[in-house]
């Protein structure tokens, strides 16, 4: 025979368990609601329809070492760094096509493009172009092909974004001595006249 006080105690414990279970379920639902609200991916702004723009790509030609200005129509984003990145992706995609005059490997070539205002200048900026390691690894080695690639990038950026006055290059976010064994990547390339370097700080113009 179970004593009465034990039956009452058992009933209270069972009731407590049920209440705690209901409470835990409720808390779990609330936590899920909070996470859903953080991951809300519903559009907050109306999409902007952008029309393709005419851009100028300076395409390199290995046979005569020339850079030829070529018109293309591409859709560009609004902000300047993204525009620069899309421009370079379009330029390097041209080189990955069959029958390219300056064959380069296909795949992701540009990791990121950063624009930084030049000190003491309101309208000029320096573009830091971060190229992928795979692109550098597959790039043809030689002074001519490497120089043409850098001049093509520099010239294309300046032709479409005139505020870019200088360009520096990184590989996978790191500084590197050369692109593929020759062209010097430790220097700043001046974009207004892309075949001429600017002297480093302290140097003489």
């Amino acid at each position, binding site marked *: 025979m179970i004593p009465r006080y034990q039956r009452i105690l058992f009933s209270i414990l069972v009731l407590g368990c049920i209440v705690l279970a209901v409470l835990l379920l409720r808390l779990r639902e609330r936590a899920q609601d909070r996470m859903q609200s953080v991951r809300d991916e519903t559009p907050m702004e109306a999409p902007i329809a952008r029309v393709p723009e005419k851009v100028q790509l300076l395409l390199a030609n290995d046979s005569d070492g020339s850079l030829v200005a070529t018109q293309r129509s591409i859709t560009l984003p609004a902000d300047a760094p993204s525009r620069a990145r899309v421009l370079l992706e379009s330029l390097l995609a041209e080189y990955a096509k069959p029958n390219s005059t300056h064959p380069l490997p296909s795949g992701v070539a540009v990791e990121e493009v950063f624009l930084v205002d030049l000190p003491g200048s309101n309208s000029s900026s320096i573009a830091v172009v971060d190229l992928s390691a795979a692109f550098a690894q597959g790039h043809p*080695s*030689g002074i*001519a*092909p490497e120089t043409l690639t850098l001049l093509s990038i520099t*010239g294309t950026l300046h032709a479409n974004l005139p505020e870019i006055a200088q360009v520096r290059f990184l590989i996978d976010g790191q500084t590197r*001595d050369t692109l593929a064994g020759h062209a*010097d990547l430790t220097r700043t390339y001046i974009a207004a006249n892309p075949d001429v370097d600017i*002297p480093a700080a302290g140097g*003489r113009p």
Partner: protein
Amino acid sequence: MRWSKQARSRNSPRLLLTIAFASALTGLAQTESPRPGVSQTDAPPPVPVPFVPDSTKPAILTKPQAPSAPPIQLRFVVVLDPGHGGEDTGAKLGPGTLEKDIVLSISTRLRALLNAKGIPVIVTRDADTSPTADDRAAIANRAKAAACLSLHATATGTGVHLFTSSLTPANYGRDEFIPWNEAQATANTQSVRLASDVNTALGKGKLPVLLGRTALRPLNSFTCPALAVEFAPVNAGSGAASLTDSSYQQRVAAALAEALVAWRVDWRQRP
């Protein structure tokens, strides 16, 4: 922007030197003529250089020995700098064909041709070694060379690619320091004249020439008139295999040797 592919005629002006200047130059040259019995490939008498570059520090200043004009060079010495070497193979031009081997082979041929013409030559490497870019520039700058050729090879394009430094020409005063990585700015005008002589000689040798400017180490650290000479396949259909052809290598070396013989005259007539 566009590089000239056409071989330009040599049109460097023949400047008349005054008798006094010529006599002074001759006198200086005689006082510093090589000692009898010394090989022409030996290094010239050591000239003190204020700062020897440390390869661990990329930008080191060097003090010029002369004011705005290049220093009076006492004898005509050529520095050949075959690129890469050792573990740095350079471009892979084909199965078993490496850039470091091609440029060393052409350097050896060119050195022999220049020695035969009585021109002393200093090389930055004559074996499969890998001096750093700063070491190469230090060798050339100590030699006070009249011409420095940095030799490279590529499978892209055709003929011979000639590059001068893309640095803006600059003059430095006697008391000014020259940035190590921009020393070529002081000699860039002379380098362009040297490129003209080389372009003419290669044109005479029926070799296609591509002229351009580039940022290249150690070219930018040379204080001598300097060129980067890049050898490409002889024509579009020949492929990189033609770079291993000994007759092509000899043809290119002979044209470069002729260019340097012409430069010996032009260099002495510089203003």
